[in-house]
């Protein structure tokens, strides 16, 4: 393992110091590992909190700031944060209008946020929760933990963040958030595994001539493994299951071609070109897009595609000003 770290035990604490030093949108509670938006509370604004395991940067800490999140809780590497962190964040950011918890659908994240929400409600805070479960690689059924929450989370934090900034109340913010999750789908693939610092070796073995289709963001296995192919056919393996799962025609679409952390941008742009060609063929009209590393899996090489069937409201919120380390426009 070769990594830019001091020790596997201090990666998160050390990284939080660097985030604090580099990003003037945020302040950090190092004891609770919560990243807060720096400027003073805007009274009457619904507050947005997310959080999850570390190792997915810039998500979530890099999306704290004007027009997106009010706070992000950083867990251990690939491990959910704990309810005491979330409770501290929830009571700190609430200014009477209530708090929306944005939770990715993993059993640990769901349970920890659920406990935090129960405690916050006991403390007199209005809390609503939206669950993101957009990974089409996972069969959704009552007999599994359900689909994983991946790329749609990024789009949701941007769109719903703008709506909260505009002054929508908690019920309206939650309704919009649920509309986004209902219309977002993702699919990912890996060229390599990733190495968790504490483990010191790759989470799974993937031979040089193989790729894993349908991966999650924690090095968990995908749908299947097959010989590496050209970008055009890999793009098809991402686009087809998404279009099969949800209708993306007849509405403006927001597309995100996301890098898993270890793939150069030139390859992500190349993949985006292939994806857009396939979408055009299928009659899907992409109105807005993101290409880059937004929801990563440490040093994993590979990419994921997220499509959101948007509406005029969502596009307007997408275009609204945002100032975070991860996304910045309109200012």
């Amino acid at each position, binding site marked *: 393992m070769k990594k830019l770290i001091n020790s596997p035990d201090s990666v998160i604490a050390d990284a939080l110091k660097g985030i604090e030093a580099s990003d003037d949108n945020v302040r950090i509670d190092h004891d609770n590992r919560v990243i807060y938006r720096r400027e003073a509370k805007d009274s009457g604004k619904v507050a947005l909190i997310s959080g999850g395991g570390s190792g997915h940067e810039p998500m979530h800490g890099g999306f704290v700031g004007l027009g997106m999140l009010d706070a992000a809780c950083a*867990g251990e590497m690939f491990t*959910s944060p704990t309810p005491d962190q979330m409770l501290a964040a929830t009571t700190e950011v609430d200014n009477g209008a209530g708090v929306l918890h944005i939770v990715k659908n993993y059993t640990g994240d769901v*349970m*920890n946020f659920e*406990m935090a929400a129960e405690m916050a409600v006991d403390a007199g805070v209005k809390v609503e929760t939206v669950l993101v479960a957009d990974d089409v690689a996972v069969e959704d059924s009552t007999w*599994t933990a359900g689909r*994983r929450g991946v790329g749609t989370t990024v789009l949701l934090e941007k769109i719903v963040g703008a709506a909260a900034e505009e002054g929508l109340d908690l019920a309206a913010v939650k309704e919009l958030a649920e509309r986004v999750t209902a219309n977002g789908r993702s699919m990912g693939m890996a060229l390599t595994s990733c190495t968790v610092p504490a483990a010191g070796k790759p989470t799974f073995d993937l031979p040089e001539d193989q790729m894993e289709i349908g991966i999650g963001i924690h090095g*968990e*296995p995908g749908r299947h493994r097959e010989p590496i192919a050209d970008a055009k056919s890999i793009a098809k393996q991402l686009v087809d299951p998404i279009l099969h799962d949800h209708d993306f025609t007849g509405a403006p679409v927001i597309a995100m071609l996301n890098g898993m952390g270890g793939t150069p941008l030139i390859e992500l742009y190349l993949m985006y070109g292939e994806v857009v060609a396939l979408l055009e063929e299928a009659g899907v009209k992409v109105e807005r897009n993101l290409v880059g590393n937004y929801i990563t899996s440490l040093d994993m090489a590979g990419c994921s595609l997220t499509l959101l069937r948007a509406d005029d409201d969502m596009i307007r919120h997408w275009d609204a000003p945002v100032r975070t380390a991860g996304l910045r426009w309109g200012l």
Partner: protein
Amino acid sequence: MGSVSANELILDDLAEWLRRYAQIIDENKTYLTELDSAIGDADHGANMARGTAAVVATLDQAQSIDALLKKAGMTLVSTVGGTSGPLYGTLLMKMGMAAGNVVSLYPDQFGKAFRAGIEGVIARGKTELEDKTMIDALLPSIDAFDAAVADGAGLHDAIESAQQAAAAGRDATIPMVARKGRASYLGERSAGHLDPGAASATYLWDALADVTGA
């Protein structure tokens, strides 16, 4: 140890129980992580060892059984993380609430409190039997404990019945297909592996048997 009066669990016994549990977890953390790497994310042993070690540091402060168990539960929730933190934390917190502000429990009272804890886990995890989780070890174990107590068994004998039922329940998870947690993403491929949560839950009874044994 050895402070156990014939047929009662006192505050010190329960503190000793959690100390012994932490020890067993620590001795088996590599094994638990190996079980977890087959069908989960390879951190169950390390996470439980970190959490139970933190619990041991809190045990001397409590003046009552509910305070002891609630503090231990909160500590697990805030140090273990993942799924095990909320589930084991809920188990101990609900057990403490059901036990109440007392310093000793008769077997039937202990059984009632433990069952309340298990019901808390079922509610938190939205789990049922045969989902391939810790519930597959815990539910049969408390049934066996209550049945033994109802039959007039002494405390230690009832605990041994529960221990055997937990181990049988744990081993029965091997052929099951996981329906909860990260293992469920594997579908049929999760069969053939012992559930790590059922393994760590069985140690609860192993620890209790050690503490109440002669």
